[in-house]
């Protein structure tokens, strides 16, 4: 059956496929996926949205089916679904269908739906992704709904909203605020005779503290991987710069030396064994629940304030833990911390019921009952009234997180503009595999690595601005 003809058959089959591809591309534009994404240009997207569901701000009185999507794990799913049930009780004519997934599954699902013109009405968004969605015309501005009172933002300060704005329009509403922190083990600090870090500590202090704890107790100073791009952003923020320039068309810094020093510090700490080795970081792939810190083998751990609950739970009730701000660069001008919307709610341009979508976002933001269920799971709510209302119900870890954020108030740096659309490509294809790994495995020097990063990242960012 498969004699000499095999080669020829393969060739003919491939040729045939090519031909069919060419024909189908040429003569059936409407049925083709190449045409299917309904968003050829941002301007065009408003049109189909307007025809199916007028951008009017009147709620439909008829029965409406609203679609909502988010990422998270089971705890967030359970809580959000309860909130949705409350919402349905309040608005009996609205029936909500919902889709949930983990962060890594959420994006394939959402982008597939976007390609099919089938995005849900309400979509949870991320700081690193939403600008790309805005640029592609997939999100609608929420300003009209704020103007007509559908979304009420009483007492919400601008600094909590600015993170969701592109070109002055609010596309994504902060679903909860967090900030960057190190969780530290007070008992270990005490045993090692190390003072609790001051809020303005530097990475030099961090290194000294780590080494001292390691020398005295034999545990690691820090558990976990500190090459997360978010931490690098904080590093440059403390120097009055940022990871990206304001217009997002280049990196936000021109002198890579602070980053070189930072990498050198990590290497030195690994050399001194006060930080777990790169090999172990990669092998054990620490999560907020499974890491050397929760296992009691390190004294510090980096976490965002809304993740601290998970760290506390996994570490067990016997530990004495505390949150401190992220260290600053040596010679810092300002705090390395900033208030970050941990995630957003947004309304898509493919929404069939944008008005009801806005109503849900309002409900989530302003309903006391809803927030008593969520209990700051997505971060501290933006509404001061809600914060006051849920304060008595918060579990200890969340109380600490809220206190931590309160203490930071007035002492944080302003948030940088959202990450440019190329952010994902830069972190996935350049930062991790071509910069961090080669430096941390000792294949290239920190200086060479940082140089490569700056060249390649600027190339991508610059290319992105070309038409």
């Amino acid at each position, binding site marked *: 059956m498969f004699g000499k003809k095999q080669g020829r058959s393969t060739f003919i089959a491939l040729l045939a496929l090519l031909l*069919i591809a060419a024909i189908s*591309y040429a003569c059936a534009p409407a049925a*083709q996926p190449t045409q299917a994404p309904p968003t050829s240009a941002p301007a065009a997207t408003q049109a189909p949205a307007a025809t199916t569901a007028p951008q009017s701000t009147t709620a439909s009185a008829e029965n409406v089916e609203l679609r909502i999507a988010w990422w998270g794990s089971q705890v967030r799913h359970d809580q959000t679904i309860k909130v949705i049930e409350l919402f349905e009780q309040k608005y009996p004519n609205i029936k909500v269908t919902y889709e949930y997934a983990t962060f890594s599954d959420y994006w394939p699902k959402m982008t597939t739906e976007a390609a099919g013109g089938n995005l849900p009405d309400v979509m949870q968004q991320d700081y690193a992704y939403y600008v790309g969605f805005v640029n592609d015309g997939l999100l609608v501005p929420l300003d009209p709904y704020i103007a007509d009172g559908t979304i009420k933002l009483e007492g919400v300060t601008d600094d909590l909203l600015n993170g969701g704005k592109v070109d002055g329009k609010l596309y994504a509403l902060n679903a909860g605020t967090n900030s960057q922190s190190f969780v530290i083990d007070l008992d270990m600090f005490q045993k090692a005779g190390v003072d609790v870090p001051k809020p303005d500590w530097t990475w030099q202090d961090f290194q000294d503290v780590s080494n001292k704890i390691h020398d005295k107790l034999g545990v690691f100073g820090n558990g976990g991987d500190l090459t997360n791009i978010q931490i690098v952003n904080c590093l440059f923020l403390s120097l009055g710069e940022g990871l990206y320039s304001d217009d997002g068309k280049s990196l936000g810094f021109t002198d890579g030396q602070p980053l070189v020093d930072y990498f050198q510090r990590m290497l030195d700490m690994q050399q001194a064994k006060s930080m777990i080795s790169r*090999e172990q970081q990669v092998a054990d792939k620490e999560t907020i629940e499974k890491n050397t810190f929760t296992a009691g083998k390190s004294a510090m751990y980096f976490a965002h304030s809304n993740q601290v609950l998970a760290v506390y739970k996994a570490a067990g009730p016997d530990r004495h833990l505390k949150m401190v701000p992220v260290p600053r660069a040596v010679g810092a001008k300002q705090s390395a911390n900033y208030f970050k919307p941990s995630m957003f709610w947004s309304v898509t341009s493919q929404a069939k019921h944008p008005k009801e979508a806005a109503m849900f976002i309002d409900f989530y933001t302003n309903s006391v009952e809803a927030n008593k269920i969520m209990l700051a799971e997505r971060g501290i709510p933006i509404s001061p009234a809600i914060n006051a209302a849920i304060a008595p119900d918060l579990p200890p870890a969340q109380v600490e997180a809220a206190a931590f954020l309160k203490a930071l108030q007035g002492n944080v740096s302003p948030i940088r503009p959202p990450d440019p659309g190329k952010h994902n490509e830069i972190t*996935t294809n350049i930062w991790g595999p071509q910069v961090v790994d080669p430096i941390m495995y000792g294949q290239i020097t920190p200086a060479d690595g940082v140089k490569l990063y700056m060249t390649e990242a600027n190339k991508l960012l610059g290319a992105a601005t070309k038409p």
Partner: protein
Amino acid sequence: MSSLVQPTTQDTPAAPMQRRAKKKSLRHDNRAGYLFIAPWLIGFFGFTLLPMAASLVLAFTDYRLTAAPHFVGLDNFQTMFLQDPRYWKSVRATFFYVFTAVPLRLIFALGLALLLNNTRRGISAYRAAFYVPSIVGASVAVAIMWRQLFGTEGIVNALLWLFGIPPTSWIGNPNTGIWTLILLAVWQFGSPMLIFLAGLKQIPQELYESASIDGANAWPQFINITIPMLSPVILFNLVLQMISGFLVFTQAFLITEGGPLDTTLFYALYLYQRAFVTFQMGYSSAMAWVLLLIIAVFTALTFKFSSNWVFYEEKRD
């Protein structure tokens, strides 16, 4: 016996004409042929061909899922071959995997299938036990489990410590990372093993009986009966394991995510990242079609050389 020992794939030319003619009537029949394969043809034209063709077209565009594609000519291929260091790393990792994991897995599967193809007491339990690892599949649990086993304080290090081998981070070490995935693939040898077992079952016992009567020992029986009779199934496993080896994805996706140092960045994983992490579906499609060509070449070569060793009972006249 002798015709068995000499596997031939060609019809014997000396077959009587009369028999040949009758056989032709049975063999050549367009209507019946298309009738039987009609379901597949409908599925192919209805569900498979269009997406395949579309992905081929997208390979020449900058499609990124959330915006309409633009035609970019050969740009994707040019970037891939000339400007993307990670691409070549993914090619290297994939070839390494295919040429280690696939043969190891097949040898294991065949060995265990032979060992378990008897009627000893408890054999079903053993067979089940060997198959169980193959059903843990793609759950999050398997990723955590595997990382624990090979973790710095995992059971593998504990065992090796008994033999005086110092502990290391198997998954985190660029020299050993890929081997943990190969080991995982070998550990999950259940599916080729089952196919081999089914193949062994199909070999008529009479062959062995008459061979025993002829005084043939175990080894000649293995070489002269088992291997030739099993050869269609061996070919199947070889081809399909090779194809799935080139497409290897799940283990690296769940456990290593391509690291350390891109040593486990398998082709399909990189393609997935390009498609669904950075949303460069055009580039991803271009990668996919190059992969298809690579696999097609290797598969065609395997089929071509298979005529030398694969023996089809149907062709024995």
